[in-house]
Each structure stands twice: as C-alpha cells, then as structure tokens.
C-alpha cells in the first residue's frame, strides 16, 4: 500500500501510473523566472495609492517565505512516507517547481524593493508582521505534527500523515496561496502589475497541480485503507480548514484595512469560505460555509487565455514534445 513503510524502487509493473502521468505533464509545463517580465510593474507601483501599496507590500512579504515552507514539508514529511517510486518522481518534480517559485518571488522582491533596508525587512516579514507570523505558525505546527515520525506503522500515524498532507494541499497551497492569487488578479483586473500576474499564472498552474496530486494521493489511500477515513478525521479536517480560513482572514484584514473598490476583508472572507467549501467537497466532505464566490475576476482565471503577442508572452506551450518526422499523419 502507498503508505506502507519502506523504500520501494520498483517502477515496473507500475502500481500508480496516474502519478507518473502527472510527473510527465508537469515536465511539459516547465517555465523559468527569466521569462517573466517585471519591468512594467515598476511604473504601476509608482502610481498605487498608499492603501494599495500596503497591500502589495504585505502580499509579497508573504510570498517571500510561503513556497519555502511548502518545500520544507515536502522534503521533511511527504517524500519520506509516500512509498511508490512514481509518486516520488512527482514529488521531486514538485520540489523543483517550489524552487522556481522561491526564485520567482526572490526576483520579484529584489525588483520591487530596490532599497536594501526595505528588502531585508520584507524578507524578515515572518518575524515581525503578526498576520504573516500567524500563518507561518499554523504551517510549522503541522510540519512538526509528524516531524518525529520515521515510519507510519500505526493507524494513528497514517491519520496524522493524512492530516499533514491535507493541510498542505487544502489549507496552504489550496487556501493561503489561492487567497494570495486573488489579490494579484484583483490588481490585474484593474490593469495593474501585469508582470506579477503573468508569473502568478504559472505559479497558480503549478500549485493547482500540486494540490491535485495530493488529493489524488488521498483518494488512493482512501481506496486502499478506507477505515482511516472516519468521523474523527472528518472533524479534524474541518477544524483545520476553519483555522486556516481564520488565519487567512486575519491576513486579509491586515491587507485590506477599510477596503478598496472591489476588494475588502469581507469580500475576501466570502471568497475564502467559498474556496474552503471547494476543498472540503473535493475531499468528499460536506461543505462548511455555503458561500458564493464574490470575485467575478476569479471566474476569468478559469477561462483559457488568448494573448496578443505584442503585449505579453504566451505561456501556452509545452516542452518535451515527442515523435519523429512523418508525412502521413492526420492533422
């Protein structure tokens, strides 16, 4: 079984071909930070209102550490216990993607904050900005929750592992990051910070794949060991998601202050509740909030883009194309 202790190295016959396909799809979506053009953002930053600038500064301060935390949990907790070589292939790839994200946000902060002192402050946000600190502590708590586990020998071990996995997928990548992306797209909907948005498109794409992979691990474990999914686990997951919504909401209050046109802490609350319900539903659990999505601009993120190449680089290409020259294939 997937969570059995050990170091399975056998790729054929492959037990979980779906994980391997996810790995291959991720490779085709390789992007690099150098492709993102942040130059136009600087002009936008200069014309933001003080409230908007505050929001952006807080946001990038969160980004400065978010992906590193995810990468750490991946290395310290997930890789160790997901015992299938094809799943570990995906996790290795995910680790690379997290590194690219870290590099992207590093480049972003270096670009946005030319002043040395401000830069140092932003990177240290996790120490001195309470709303960011609180989110980080939430993450650390869940990292630590299974940090001492070397093997998942008991059912309780496995449940603890599942909670960690679900936390990082549903709460951290699937809620904290989704919240952060919403601010980016709100700015984007007003024609601001296109560079940040275009990099975010790619980060968003990666993150949603990470989340889907994790959920697919959960599905697999559920199929293999259905008894792990009892009322206790349900209650724990729901409570965890509630806490995540609260933490993200505190962050939203910090970012939005008294609110700006089209973006306020209350809008964000509804969005977070909506997203949280989506995560619960995906996990096969009942929705907790029943709130509708307040952000029309997020609907746009679900629709295929068609860029004018004069204006933006097109992100819609694949690498690792296969096959050989032929003249009789249909097209």
């Amino acid at each position: 079984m997937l969570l059995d202790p050990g170091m399975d190295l056998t790729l054929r016959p492959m037990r979980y071909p779906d994980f391997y396909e996810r790995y291959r799809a991720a490779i085709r979506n390789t992007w690099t930070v150098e492709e993102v053009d942040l130059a136009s953002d600087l002009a936008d930053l200069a014309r933001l209102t003080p409230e908007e600038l505050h929001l952006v500064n807080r946001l990038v301060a969160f980004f400065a550490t978010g992906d590193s935390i995810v990468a750490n949990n991946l290395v310290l907790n997930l890789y160790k216990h997901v015992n299938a070589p094809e799943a570990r292939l995906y996790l290795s790839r995910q680790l690379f993607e997290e590194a690219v994200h870290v590099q992207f946000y590093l480049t972003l902060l270096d670009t946005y904050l030319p002043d040395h002192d401000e830069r140092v402050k932003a990177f240290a946000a996790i120490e001195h900005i309470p709303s960011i600190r609180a989110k980080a502590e939430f993450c650390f708590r869940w990292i630590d929750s299974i940090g001492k586990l070397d093997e998942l020998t008991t059912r309780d071990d496995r449940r603890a592992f599942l909670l960690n996995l679900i936390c990082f997928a549903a709460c951290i990548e699937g809620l904290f990051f989704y919240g952060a992306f919403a601010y980016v797209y709100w700015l984007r909907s007003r024609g601001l910070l296109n560079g940040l948005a275009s990099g975010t498109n790619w980060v968003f794409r990666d993150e949603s794949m990470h989340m889907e992979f994790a959920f697919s691990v959960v599905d697999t474990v559920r199929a293999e060991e259905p008894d792990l999914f009892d009322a206790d686990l349900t209650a724990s997951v729901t409570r965890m998601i509630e806490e995540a919504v609260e933490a993200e909401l505190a962050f939203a209050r910090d970012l939005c202050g008294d609110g700006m046109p089209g973006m306020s802490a209350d809008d964000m609350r509804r969005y977070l509740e909506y997203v949280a319900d989506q995560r619960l539903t995906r996990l096969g659990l009942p929705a907790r909030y029943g709130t509708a999505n307040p952000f029309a601009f997020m609907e746009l993120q679900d629709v295929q883009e068609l860029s004018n190449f004069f204006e933006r680089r097109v992100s819609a290409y694949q690498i690792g194309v296969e096959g050989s020259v032929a003249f009789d294939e249909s097209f």
Partner: protein
Amino acid sequence: MTQQLDAPVETARGVLEAEVGRACAGLADAEPGRVLAAVRGTDAATDVAGLREQAIGEAAALVAVEPAYSRVAARLLNAHIAEEAASQGVRTFAESAAAAHREGLMADAPAAFVAANADALNALVDESADDRFEYFGLRTVYDRYLWRHPRTRRVLERPQFFLMRVAVGLAETVDDVRELYGLLSTLSYLPSSPTLFNSAARRSQLSSCFLLDAPRDELESIYERYAQVARLSKYAGGIGVSWTRVRSRGSLIQGTNGLSNGIVPWLRTLDSSVAAVNQGGRRKGAACVYLEPWHADVEEFLELRDNTGEDARRTHNLNLANWIPDEFMRRVERDEDWSLFDPKVTPELTDLYGDDFDRAYRAAEAAGKAVRTISARRLYGRMMRTLAETGNGWMTFKDISNRACNQTAEKGNVVHLSNLCTEILEVTSDGETAVCNLGSINLGAHVLPGGTVDWERLRATVRTAVRFLDRTIDRGFYPTGEAEKANKKWRPMGLGVMGLADVFFKLRLPFDSDEARTLSTRIAEEISLAAYGASADLAEAHGPHPAYDQTRTARGQLHIDHFPDAAITRPDAWDALRARVARTGLRNSLLIAVAPTATIASIAGCYECIEPQVSNLFKRETLSGEFLQINQYLVRDLKAEGLWLPEVREAIKRANGSVQGLADLPDDVRVLYRTAWELPQKALIDLAAARTPFIDQSQSLNLFMETPTIGKLSSMYAYAWRSGVKTTYYLRSRPATRIAQTTVSATEAVICSLENPETCEACQ
C-alpha cells in the same frame, strides 16, 4: 481624510443608478439591478466615477452569463470617456483637434484643415456609432488609441473624434473625410494600428511593417542595422530582419585572425535592443529574425527561444522564422543529406532562389564548401520541435514567395524575408528597407441580413481602402531614409480582411465545408479584382509607381498567372482588368496581404483575419486587464434551443470553450461551433492555398494543435509547402496542464470527466 467628498453616497449612487438604467436601455436581456447589486460604496469610492468603475467591471464580468452586458459596460465606459474629455474642454471634434494641436500632438496642416471646416466636420460626427462597440473594443480604444494630454494623461478625444482624426489625417477634402469616416464609424474597415495611433500626428509614422535585409557580414553594417531597427521600432513598426548574410560560428575573422562566435551573440544584442525600445509607451518593440536553413548556425538559431539551457544563448523577445528553399523540403521528403554553409564562403546563396539557388547550392556542395552535412530530416524534426515548444520558428517558403512576387521580375531584386507577422513579401537590399501600410476590411460587416455577401458594398469598401492606403504612403513619416526610398519607389500596400469566421457563422457554414472554401476564395478574388482596379485608377490619375518598369505586371504577368489552377469565377473581369492595367499600369506594386489584425479586430468586435474561432469562451489578456469573450452567435443559437442555462455555461467553461460534449445540441450546431482545436488543420491550409492566387503578398496563417507531436507537425508543414502556401505563422498549442478551475464546482468537475460520460448531467 483630506479631500471633501463630492456628494453623499446616496446621491452618487442615485446618479449611477440612472446611468446604468440608460446603459441597459433597449437590451432586453440586461437588467440594471444585476449590475448595481455588486456596486458597493466603500469610503474610498463615494464619487460617481468610482462607483461607475465598479459597475463597468461588474457588467464586463456578467458577459459570461449574458453577452448583452458587454454593451452595457461599453456604454458606461463611454460615459466615463465623455466626462474625461469634457474635463479637458473637449465636447466637439473641432475642440478635440484644437486641444490636440495646442498640446503639440496634432500637426499644423490637419489642425488648420479642421479649423477651416469646423462646422462641416462636427456635423459629420455620428455619436450613435459609439453603440457599435463591444466593451473590449471600446476599452482597447480608450486605453491605447485615444490621444491623451501629455501631462494630465486625460483623453483629448472621444471614440468618434478619434476616428474622425484618423480620417482627417488622410484626407484632402471634407468629402474625403466623409468617405473614410463612413467606413471607420461603421467598423467596416480599419487601417492598422500605427495609422490609428499616428494619423494627423506631428510624427505621422503610419506603416506597420518594416523588412530589413541582412546586414553585410561586417561589424559596421551590423551596428547600422541595430540603429535602423531601433529607429523603426520607436514609432510602432514591427520589424522583420534577415541574418543570413552574417558569418557562422568558427569562421575566420581576417582582421584579427580570430574565429567568429557566429550569429547568436549578435542576436542577443538585437534582442536587448528591441526590448529597450518602448513604442511610445503603447507596446514593446517586436522583431522577427529570418534565417535560411543552410546557414551553419541554424541549429543554435532554433534554440534561441528555448526556456532551458544557457541563458546567454537565448533571446526571449525575438521571434524566429525559417526562410526555406524548396530544395530543403525536397531533401526532407527524400530523406537525403543537407549541407550547412558559412555565408562568408557562399555569399551568393542569399540572393538566389528557385533553379538558380538549387544549382548554386549543389555546386557549393560539390566544391566541398560545406561546414557540415546533416540529415535533412533531422533538421526538419528540430524545426518541428521548436514550433511545438515555443510556437516560434515559423515556416516560410523562399521560392514560391519570390517566384510569385511582382517585384522580382529583374534579377537582383530578391525577397529575402517576410515580416514580423509573415504576411508581407517585398524586395529588400542593403540600401532598401521594405515598408508596408496595412488595413483590413471587416467582412462580417458586409453580409446582408438575408445571409448573402453584399458584393457591391465590398467592392466599394475596397476602392476606398486602396485610395486611402495609397495616401498613407505620401502622408507617412519615415524613420529612416532606406524605408522612405523603398516605399516611394514601390508604393506597396497590404489590404487584408478580418471577420471571415463571422461570415461563416452568419451564413452557417462550417469552416471546413466546401461552401466555406468556395466563398472564402470568391471573397479573395473580388477583393483582389477591386483593389487592382482601384490601383489602376490611381495610376491613371497620378502615374504608375516609379519602379513599375521593374515589375512582372509591366511584363504582362499578373499574380494569378502564377497559379494556373486558381478558382477564377470572373474571367471576363480579369480580362478587362488585364487590358486596363496594360494601358494604365499600377500605382502600387503589391496590394493584398492578410495581417493578423489582433488589435483592430478587437476594436471592430470581430474574429481575427482569416482565422477560425479559438474558443467559444475565452479571455483576452492585454495591458489593460482581462476580458471575457464569448461567441455571441452560439449564445443566440443556444437561446433559440432553450439551452442557455447555467449548467450549460458551466459545461462550456469546463470544456475550455468547447461545445462538442453538449449532447442536447443539434449536430449541425455542434459542427458549426467547433473551435480551431477541433477543426482539421488541413482545412485551414486548404482555404489558405485556395486563396493564395488572389493574395500577391501573403497571409498570417496560424495553425493549431492541442498536443503537437513531431509526426503530426512534420506531416502538416510538408502538406502546407506542397499546397503552395507561401508562409505560415505561429503554431498554437495548449499547455500540458492548466489551473484547477476555481469557480467550477469541485465535484461536478469529477463527474464530468471523460471516464464517466454517462453520468455527466450537463451533457444530457
């Protein structure tokens, strides 16, 4: 709070409510309440403008539910524009022109013309024409095209004043203005963006494309080209530049006894230079580099856009195109070897095409001059990989492009490359930079209510368009002497089309049907006939263009004569034209080119050039934000079937804009609304090939493949070459994975997966 509020919340909201009510007037499916529901007054937005901004955003977002809200958003935005212009003292066209002149934007002559004819011109303005704009079109006009005060950045034009200004910039009389403005205000025809930006301006750079021959193989010439590229980019021109003459890696540099690093370092510098030039703040410079596949650096060239590998050997801003002789394609087909040369050793190859090239190429091989010999198929496969992975490395065909070109009658006049969008084919040389002025006819605006093409009106539009495109040649400001010299000598233009897909939707013709191909070819034939007729008229009045003697036309050969299989429906008209041209000559060496029309099709609210729709539902990302676009023809049909329901909308969204999974849809509707991804690409190539005889330059032909493989691509591009298509443009593909949809319910998405089609509620 330091600022006094304009009005209390209630009052500002009252004003907005009335405005939204007016914006919904006459639109049966738009409800003011739905727009207003989302408008919230926070402390920061208690003025009408702030509330209106929210209302515009909300109406724009509602387009996915009901396309009529696009008009609502457009009307609200228009109110905003009118207010902004009024704040600058602009209420009439004459006031707009005066303000633009005062602020140093408008040139003296058009300003004097407007002042002298103020009443007559003001009377021409048709304010109701604003209602033809969809939201995205008007937004584009507002964000990018309307002239702004140099310091306040407020607009000095309203949409109709802008179109009037464009007409005035190209007019000699009030009647001229009436004629051209009549086409613009009905969105029947639009000139290209540089003309829209700069008509009547002090620096009236009106041309879209510039084509530069490769620099000579020496340092001074290479740096001179950078400077030319920069000057041309500055004024919103797109650049095509060949690099085939520059020596390859390892070639001896005699002056220093060193070895060359090849073309890549030079192209890196070009890349930086192009990115540094910001076209008047409107868009970044853009350039495409052409290389012939016998150049010994061709493999490194094909890697320039890869996002992996050493960044010092990458150019992220340059577009890349292959300029391919037939000999290469023949060897690919026969699976033969292909020799790579250093152009320093074989400088003659660049200036030869057809049989002459083949002979010289084989002679160079026989003389042992090749740097290296590789498998032709291996290189072709590498080209296909580049297309799949970057969309770049466009396949353009040197021999047909030269053989059929009107400008290549005399030896030494050679087409060395196409342009940034692969639709221009003109002769270049070291001292001659080819230029093209473009404009496109909105075909959808030439369909009669009964569902037939209004041929007479189409011809009239062509005649007007040709007359004013010809005028741009004289009115334009040229950033370089090389460009001016060439343009005045050849006087080429590129009259194209947009909205072909609209015509097919209106006539309910599937894109890949025989009827569609026949109609599309007939349209091309009519446009071509009318355009040549108009150019003959101009030649009669002003004389043929100065280099007319050097053209194939002067030798009795028209473009269609290169295509004995052309589907000609009006042989008599062609005979008459031929006789007439023999008498009058032509004012323009080239007339027809189908450009991509990315931005002007947005303004006109139609599908781009000759392209099928990319999706029934997609968003456009531009500098001014993201905008939802929905196929309004489809929505009309769905409404008629009683199928325009939330679950159907969700299903279309989930299927990335496809309707093929909607089982309730009648077959003919489903077939009609296939997207570019769902159409056989063979049909796109067949349509393009059938149209080619009537297009004396070329067409920006994008091809689409959801999941490209080398096998499919190599088959497709070999077919395109055999079909006689002169050039192709981007290969569009889709990302391997995409963002998990945020606003589509998580469980429904699972139910609707392809594994469980029978349980998909939306598809029942």
